[in-house]
């Protein structure tokens, strides 16, 4: 029983002696830089281009179709933005059509909008895909006053999410107050009909409190709903109005 420590001691010293003449890979230097892939770079890999080409051609036919005209730039910012306003307004309007209900308001999680801006003028199918690449669907959720408060608190905590024109609130630091719907304070007698993307209605971005609320579901993708809306506006001879009003006051 007493031999063990001695063996250990010997083996340790052997390792120690050997280490002096053992080859070691030292980390001698590190040099880092970020290379930018920009318009100055003119050379393209031919094989890669050839691989992309057939995919690109099929897509382009679908994506380059102009479906509407934006009367101003759409920009994405927190808490208010033209892009957020437009998107949430379209969700509310199209949601009302899809569910055939009076919708009170709509919300959209900020992170779900995937491009920072869309320039005014022609709007293509491809831009809507880039804006909303996710296969999120329309859900109509019934919110009581306490649910609206919870949702507003969550949106405020996240720095302000896009909301449609019927709702407004005051954001101080990360706290929401003075919530108004259709210009009126929240009422305990009322159940609010709210369009929420399925990602959020199913508890995404930690919105667990929405999961068990009464709802109507649809399998219509937000993206397809928006494309339909734009087509209808164009067919009716209207351009797409960009609204820059502040819905979240600070």
């Amino acid at each position, binding site marked *: 029983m007493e031999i063990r420590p001695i063996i250990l001691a010997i083996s340790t010293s052997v390792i120690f002696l050997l280490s002096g003449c053992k080859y070691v890979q030292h*980390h001698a230097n590190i*040099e880092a830089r970020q290379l930018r892939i920009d318009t100055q770079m003119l*050379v*393209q890999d031919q094989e*890669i281009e050839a691989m*992309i080409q057939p*995919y690109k051609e099929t897509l382009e036919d679908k994506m380059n179709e102009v479906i509407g005209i934006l009367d101003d730039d759409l920009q994405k910012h927190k808490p208010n933005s033209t892009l957020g306003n437009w998107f949430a307004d379209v969700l509310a309007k199209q949601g009302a059509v899809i569910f055939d209900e009076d919708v009170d308001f709509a919300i959209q999680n900020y992170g779900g909008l*995937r491009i920072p801006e869309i320039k005014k003028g022609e709007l293509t199918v491809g831009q809507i895909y880039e804006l909303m690449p996710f296969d999120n669907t329309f859900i109509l959720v019934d919110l009581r006053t306490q649910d609206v408060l919870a949702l507003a608190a969550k949106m405020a905590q996240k720095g302000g999410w896009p909301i449609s024109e019927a709702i407004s609130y005051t954001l101080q630091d990360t706290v929401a107050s003075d919530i108004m719907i259709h210009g009126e304070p929240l009422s305990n007698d009322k159940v609010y009909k709210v369009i929420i993307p399925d990602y959020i209605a199913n508890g995404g971005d930690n919105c667990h409190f929405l999961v068990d609320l009464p709802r109507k579901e649809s399998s219509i993708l937000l993206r397809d709903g928006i494309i339909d809306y734009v087509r209808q506006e164009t067919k009716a001879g209207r351009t797409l109005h960009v609204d820059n009003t502040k819905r979240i006051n600070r």
Partner: protein
Amino acid sequence: MINRRSFVKQMGQGSLLLAANGLPQGMFDKGEITKVTILHTNDMHSRIEPFPMNGGRFQGLGGVAKRAALLKQIRENTDHVLLLDSGDIFQGTPYFNFYGGELEFKLMSEMAYDVATLGNHDFDAGVEGFHKQLQHANFEFVNANYRFDNTLLADKVKPYTVIQKGNIRFGIFGIGIELEGLVPSNLYAGIQYENPIEKAQLTAKRLLEDEGCHYIICLSHLGYKYREGNQVCDIDLAKQTSNINLILGGHTHTFMREIDIHENKEGKPVYINQAGWAGILLGKIDLYFENNRLGHCKSCKNLRVN
């Protein structure tokens, strides 16, 4: 404390010296110098073509065909290259909506990516959708803190891989972000998230001690850092573990102006880099190793921690 400013300055001078001498072996007596170039991307988000010329912030930037040309050019002048990606390959352009990630994987294979890890958006077509596209990927996927038992990915995604470049053994492992609340649960059904710090610590130890790796790289999709909350990030990962040499990050789409450096649990340097997103940047990290039996390193003075 690592004096970052003087480190960066010295690092610059050191590399100038090496470049001016064309890596002379004699300069280091019997020490043999191996240079390995790490190239890396993250959050490519299906950005196959450059951003369209529509006046947007990123117009004209990125594009796989240009990146591939740049990669070829670098490979022509470099003996040892590792090409890595830190996840969120999928989602962001119609290429993903229509083709499910097939073209992304084919192009990465053609560019000869070595290893990638999974980001949260790589589950956007579900475990099944990701699995379906794996047939188009000839590179490896690693993740050490998701348990894939009884899912389609059980044998497909390994905790780590070991790649030898010259005489240098690289241990490369992946760390993923918590999927709950970020990805609809039906899309990642069966995958268990485990503590990233603990798994990183265990995996790095294994790579060092059992796999005999000289350099350990973590492909992380945790995110570089967060302004609010206590969500675990790459800086936490660097500070709270041992044996990791380099963290190549993703998720937060961070355009880092220069590589970041932190002390690990033992006061040793850990580097963190992230290359923006959408293939706008290609991170290029040249590593120099000195092989000798002197018991110390002749060219390492630039890396000393103050």
